[in-house]
């Protein structure tokens, strides 16, 4: 059996009185692994421990066989895409990614080349010379991905990478992550949407309230989640026309407008996402800019699981 890319042993993290992660022991195997849990479950805490931003309160965590805290040389081998929507807004996408690659020791020319390649992979080359401040939500997600992959790491750690992406970028990112895995690299990707994770990998770690509930292939969880209505927030050029079309579908249980977006409740998320991607590709209702899913779907499943 191959050595795990991440190994946690009795790992705990607490912030004062608040427990972020509670005595977890598990291994993340090579390949693609999904970390699934609702907001506040401990996903981000675990990712921060795995990227050496936090020090364990108890226990230990090894990444690629080494302790990560205080070991900056390990970051040559790791790419991290954080959850927060934070950037140097005045820089262009190209300047920003290249500047970060330079911190990996690359000279100016090779950093610019690596940045261009990474921006190309996330389909952002056309906007490379635009200021990040002028990017849409989906473009910001993609430029964040670009900085994570630009230095060609062995292990990618992605915290909610699909949040806010439009359906086409989402499909492309999922393909890219799968391709990454096929090339023999490892990816740990977190999400609170099972369908997102499932489209990338069957290998899932379920986390809730700071504990790992289950790991491995979790088809049963998938069956469970299908019993719960799934909410999706969609922002498009012509939201009302899109809503009319969606409402005609059998699986759409309800629709509600929130500003310029529509919140759809569906009983068949897989079919819904597939149809949304087709609609985005056809452009029949203009561009679809943002698709997000609140975590109350998954929360319902977890409440059921931990009863």
């Amino acid at each position: 059996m191959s050595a795990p890319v991440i190994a946690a042993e009795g790992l705990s993290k607490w912030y004062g009185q608040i427990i972020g992660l509670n005595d977890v022991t598990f291994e993340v195997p090579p390949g693609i692994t999904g970390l699934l849990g609702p907001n506040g479950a401990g996903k981000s805490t675990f990712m921060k421990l795995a990227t050496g931003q936090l020090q364990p309160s108890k226990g230990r965590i090894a990444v690629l066989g080494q302790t990560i805290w205080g070991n900056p040389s390990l970051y040559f081998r790791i790419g991290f895409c954080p959850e927060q929507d934070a950037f140097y807004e005045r820089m262009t996408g190209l300047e920003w990614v290249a500047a970060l690659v330079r911190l990996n020791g690359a000279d100016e020319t090779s950093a610019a080349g690596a940045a261009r390649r990474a921006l190309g992979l996330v389909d952002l080359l056309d906007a490379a010379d635009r200021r990040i401040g002028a990017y849409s939500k989906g473009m910001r997600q993609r430029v964040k991905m670009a900085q994570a992959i630009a230095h060609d790491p062995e292990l990618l750690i992605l915290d909610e990478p699909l949040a806010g992406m439009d359906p086409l970028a989402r499909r492309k990112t999922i393909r890219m992550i799968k391709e990454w895995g096929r090339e023999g690299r490892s990816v740990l990707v977190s999400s609170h949407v099972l369908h997102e994770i499932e489209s990338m990998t069957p290998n899932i770690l379920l986390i809730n309230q700071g504990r790992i509930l289950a790991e491995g292939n979790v088809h049963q969880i998938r069956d469970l989640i299908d019993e719960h209505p799934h909410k999706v927030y969609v922002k498009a050029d012509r939201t009302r026309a899109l809503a009319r079309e969606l409402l005609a579908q059998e699986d759409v249980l309800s629709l509600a407008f929130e500003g310029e977006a529509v919140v759809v409740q569906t009983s068949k998320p897989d079919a819904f996402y597939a149809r949304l991607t087709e609609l985005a590709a056809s452009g029949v209702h203009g561009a679809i800019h943002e698709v997000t899913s609140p975590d109350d779907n998954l929360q319902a499943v977890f409440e059921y699981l931990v009863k």
Partner: protein
Amino acid sequence: MMEGRTAPTVAASALRVFDLSLGQMLWSRRSVFLAILLGAPVLMAVAIRVLGARLGPIEVNGRAVNGAAVFGLMIWLLYIRFIVPVLGVFYGTSLIADEIDDKTITYLFTRPIRRSAVLLGKYLAYLASTVLLVLPSVMLVFFLVVPTGEGSLGAAFPSLLADFGMLTAGLIAYGAVFAFVGARLKRPLVAGLVFAFGWEPAALLLPGYLKRLTVAYYLQALVAHERPQDSPIGMLLQVFREVPPVGTSLISLALIVGLALWAASRAVEGREYVLEQ
């Protein structure tokens, strides 16, 4: 995989962080504050110049005060005792804090460079941005104020160069001290303000050795201006009369800077930064 995976040295990493940070710092929220802070002495200098042209030179106790003496007083009381510590407090304490508030620290701390290099790079960016903005302000004040009261620009020019050196030394020293405060404390701004405007003025007025625990004590040895005697200005400057030799001051300032940056680096290397969710 990318070739040539050699970690850059701390100095090279710091320079790359400097490149990344300089523009951010110059266009940060603090820039407006910096402009107001540095614009105020220039406005005062304009007022002195206009009033001097209309009403004649400034007089104290019936005696005309030379423009160079007024400039010297402005340098000491406005720049060294107020503007430089304020810049040090507001910029120095925020070197890392700004990245935390903006949630961009993650990108810097997940690269194969030491955290101390991030701190040093941002400290260098602070120095470059403040020095490049303070010195033009001083130069404008010099050209506006020194010619009043029959002052001579040519005669006063060497002291301007010395003032540049002193202000730069002040920015270096205060920046390093407050970088340490920022790296070590959770609410560094309050502690920094208490140090700069509570502890320092008080310690300078107290007899004994306490004044040696201030930055201002060593900076005052670098003041190049002659202090006018037998005038309120002279009396005011008497307060700062006890000064160490220039060599001792420079060595002491270098030690303060070295020690503060070392301690700040240690603090940054060992501290966890938890971003607000």
